[in-house]
C-alpha cells in the first residue's frame, strides 16, 4: 500500500509483501537510491576532467571503473527499475485488475535487483558497459569482470520476468469491458517495452554466457586466436541494446502522456497516433542495431541498410512530439513541477533526436563516433528525456505515495537548475566531440579548446549535482513534514487520477 496514508507499517511488511503498490514502492526507492549513487560517480568523473592531468582520481583504472559502473547503474538500476516502479503502481489500476498477474513472480523480479546490484558494485569492473571483447575476455581484470557478467545476467533475468508479468497483466487480466484501444498510453508504453524486452534481452543473455566461457578459456566465440570473431559480440550486444534504448525511452514517454494532458487541462490530441507511434517504434527499433558499428569495417551495403533502419525510427518519435504539442496547443496549461519536467524533457528529446539523425548519416558518423559528441547525444536521451520524464512522474506520484505534497518552489528550482545544467553539459559535449575528444579518457592533452569545453561541462554537471541535492532534501523533508495533500486532486486542476492509495490491500 502507501506510506503514511492508512497507518504506518513496519518496514519488513513492505519488504516481504507481494502487493503491486508495495513492490512498486521497493522499486521506486531502489531506483532513486541508484540515481544518486550513479550520479555521484558522474560528478567525480567531471571533476577529474576539469583540467588535464590527475585531479581527484589517482589512476586511470579507477576512472575506467567509475564510468563502467556509472553507465551500468543508471541504465539497469535506475531507469529500468523506475519504469517498473511506476508500472507496478499504475498498470494494474489502468487495466482495472486487483494486482499484477503473478504477484510472487513480481516480488522475485524485484529481489533479483539488489543481488545483481551488489555484484556490479562490489566487483566494480572496468571494461565499459559494452564489455567489448577481446579486451573483456583477454585483458579485463577479474574477478570484477566476472562479477559484472553475473550481475548483468541476474538483472537481465529480472527484467525478463518483470516483462512477462506486465504483458500478461495487460493482455490477459484487463477488465473485459476495457478494449485494448482504450487502455491508457502509459500502460501501452509498458506493454510495448515489455514485448521488446522479451525479444531483445535473451540475445545479450546468450552473449554474456559466451563472454564468461571465453574468459574462462574453454571457448573462443569472440577470440580470433581460437577462430572466433570479436565483431560477433558487438552484433549480439547491439541487437539487445539498441532496442533497449526504446525499452528505456517508451515508458518515460508514456509517463509524459499521463502528465501533459492533465496539466494542459485538455484531452490528449490523439490516442490512436500515440499507440501507432509506440507500435511503430517497437518494430523499427529492431532494424537499426548496427549503426553503432559503422567503424568496425562494415561494407557499404550494410551501412546503408542500417542507416535506413535508423532513419525509419524517426517518424515514430516525431509523432509523439507532435502529439504533445498538439495537446498543449490552446490548453489552459498549469506549469506545476511535473509539467515543467515533462516539457523540458520533450525539448531535450527533440534535440537528442535531431543529433541522432546526424549520427546515422554515414559520412558524419565517422566524425562523431566514439567521441564526446556521442556522450552528449545519448545523455540527452537518458538524462534529458528519460530521467526528466521519470523525475516528472516522481513529483506527480509523490502525493499519492506519501500522502503529502512536495514543496512546489523547490521542485521548480530543481527543474530550472537541472535544465540549465543539462544543456550546459551535454550541448558542450557535442561540440567537444566535433573538436575530436575521444570518450572514455582519463586524461587529455592540453589543447586550449578541449580544456575550456571540459570546464564548461564540469560546471554544468555541478549545477545538476546542486539541483539533485535540492531534490533529495525536498523528497525527504516533504515526505515526513510536507503539507498534507488533497488526495482527490493534489494540484487543484480537476479531473480524476489513478489512485494507487485506494486499491484494496489483501493479506498476503
Amino acid at each position, binding site marked *: 500500500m502507501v506510506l503514511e496514508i492508512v497507518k504506518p507499517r513496519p518496514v519488513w511488511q513492505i519488504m516481504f509483501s507481494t502487493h503491486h503498490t508495495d513492490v512498486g514502492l521497493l522499486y521506486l526507492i531502489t531506483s532513486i537510491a541508484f540515481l544518486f549513487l550513479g550520479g555521484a560517480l558522474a560528478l567525480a568523473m567531471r571533476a577529474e576532467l576539469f583540467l588535464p592531468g590527475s585531479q581527484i582520481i589517482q589512476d586511470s583504472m579507477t576512472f575506467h571503473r567509475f564510468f563502467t559502473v556509472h553507465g551500468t547503474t543508471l541504465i539497469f538500476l535506475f531507469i529500468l527499475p523506475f519504469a517498473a516502479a511506476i508500472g507496478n503502481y499504475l498498470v494494474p489500476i489502468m487495466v482495472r485488475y486487483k494486482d499484477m498477474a503473478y504477484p510472487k513472480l513480481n516480488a522475485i523480479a524485484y529481489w533479483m535487483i539488489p543481488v545483481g546490484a551488489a555484484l556490479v558494485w562490489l566487483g566494480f569492473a572496468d571494461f565499459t558497459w559494452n564489455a567489448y571483447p577481446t579486451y573483456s575476455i583477454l585483458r579485463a581484470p577479474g574477478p570484477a569482470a566476472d562479477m559484472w557478467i553475473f550481475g548483468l545476467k541476474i538483472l537481465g533475468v529480472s527484467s525478463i520476468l518483470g516483462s512477462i508479468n506486465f504483458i500478461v497483466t495487460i493482455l490477459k487480466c484487463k477488465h473485459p469491458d476495457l478494449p485494448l484501444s482504450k487502455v491508457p498510453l502509459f500502460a501501452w508504453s509498458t506493454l510495448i517495452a515489455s514485448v521488446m524486452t522479451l525479444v531483445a534481452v535473451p540475445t545479450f543473455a546468450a552473449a554474456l554466457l559466451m563472454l564468461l566461457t571465453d574468459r574462462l578459456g574453454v571457448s573462443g566465440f569472440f577470440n580470433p586466436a581460437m577462430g572466433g570473431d*570479436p565483431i560477433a559480440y558487438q552484433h549480439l550486444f547491439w541487437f539487445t541494446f539498441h532496442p533497449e534504448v526504446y525499452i528505456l525511452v517508451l515508458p518515460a514517454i508514456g509517463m509524459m502522456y499521463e502528465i501533459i494532458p492533465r496539466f494542459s487541462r485538455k484531452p490528449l490530441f490523439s490516442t490512436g497516433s500515440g499507440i501507432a507511434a509506440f507500435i511503430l517504434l517497437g518494430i523499427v527499433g529492431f532494424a537499426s542495431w548496427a549503426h553503432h558499428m559503422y567503424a568496425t*569495417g562494415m561494407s*557499404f551495403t550494410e551501412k546503408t541498410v542500417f542507416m535506413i533502419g535508423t532513419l525509419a525510427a524517426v517518424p515514430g518519435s516525431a509523432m509523439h512530439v507532435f502529439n504533445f504539442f498538439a495537446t498543449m496547443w490552446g490548453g489552459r496549461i498549469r506549469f506545476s513541477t511535473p509539467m515543467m519536467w515533462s516539457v523540458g524533457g520533450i525539448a531535450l528529446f527533440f534535440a537528442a533526436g535531431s543529433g541522432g539523425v546526424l549520427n546515422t548519416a554515414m559520412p*558524419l558518423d565517422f*566524425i562523431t563516433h*566514439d567521441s564526446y559528441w556521442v556522450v552528449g547525444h545519448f545523455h540527452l536521451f537518458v538524462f534529458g528525456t528519460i530521467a526528466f520524464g521519470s523525475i516528472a512522474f516522481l513529483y506527480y506520484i509523490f502525493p499519492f505515495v506519501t500522502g503529502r505534497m512536495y514543496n512546489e518552489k523547490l521542485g521548480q528550482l530543481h527543474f530550472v537548475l537541472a535544465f540549465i545544467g543539462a544543456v550546459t553539459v551535454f550541448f558542450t559535449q557535442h561540440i567537444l566531440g566535433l573538436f575530436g575528444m575521444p570518450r572514455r579518457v582519463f586524461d587529455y592533452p592540453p589543447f586550449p579548446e578541449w580544456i575550456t569545453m571540459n570546464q564548461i561541462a564540469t560546471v554544468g554537471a555541478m549545477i545538476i549535482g546542486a539541483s539533485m541535492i535540492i531534490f533529495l532534501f525536498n523528497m525527504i523533508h516533504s515526505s515526513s513534514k510536507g503539507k498534507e495533500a488533497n488526495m482527490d486532486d493534489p494540484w487543484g486542476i480537476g479531473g480524476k487520477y489513478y489512485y494507487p492509495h485506494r486499491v484494496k490491500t489483501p493479506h498476503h
Partner: protein
Amino acid sequence: MTGHSSWPEWVYIGVVVAILVWVGADSWYIEKLIDHAPEDAEIIKVTGQQWFWSFEHADGTKEVGELHLKKGIPYKFEVQSKDVIHSFNIHDYTVMMDAVPGRINTVWFVPDETGEFPIQCREYCGLIHYNMRGILYVEDT
C-alpha cells in the same frame, strides 16, 4: 477521439519524412564517393597494440608513434590489431577505423595541408587508452 482534423499531423509527418529522405540520400551519395580508395593509393600498414600505434610504409620503412606522409598523395591504411580492439583516428582528416584483432580494415585519405596532426585511439582499450596517441606529420613533396 475528439473529432479534430488530423491533416496537420500528416503534413508534419510528410515534412519529417522528406527531411529524412534528403539526409539519407545525400549521405548515401557521399559515402558512395568515398567508399573505395583510388587505385594508386600508397598502402600503409597500421598496427594497434596496447598502447601505441606502429606504421609500415610500402617501402618497408617502419615508424612507431609517429607517421610521416607527403602532401597531396592518396594513402590507404590497412588497420589491424595485435591484442584488443582499438580505433585508429586522425580527427582532423576524419580518418577513423577500428583496429580489430583477426581482421584487416581499410580506410583512405589524401592529406591536403602540411603540418602536425594528432593521432589517437578512439575505442576503449585498457589502462593507458587515454594516452595511446601519436603524431601525423604531413610534409611538402
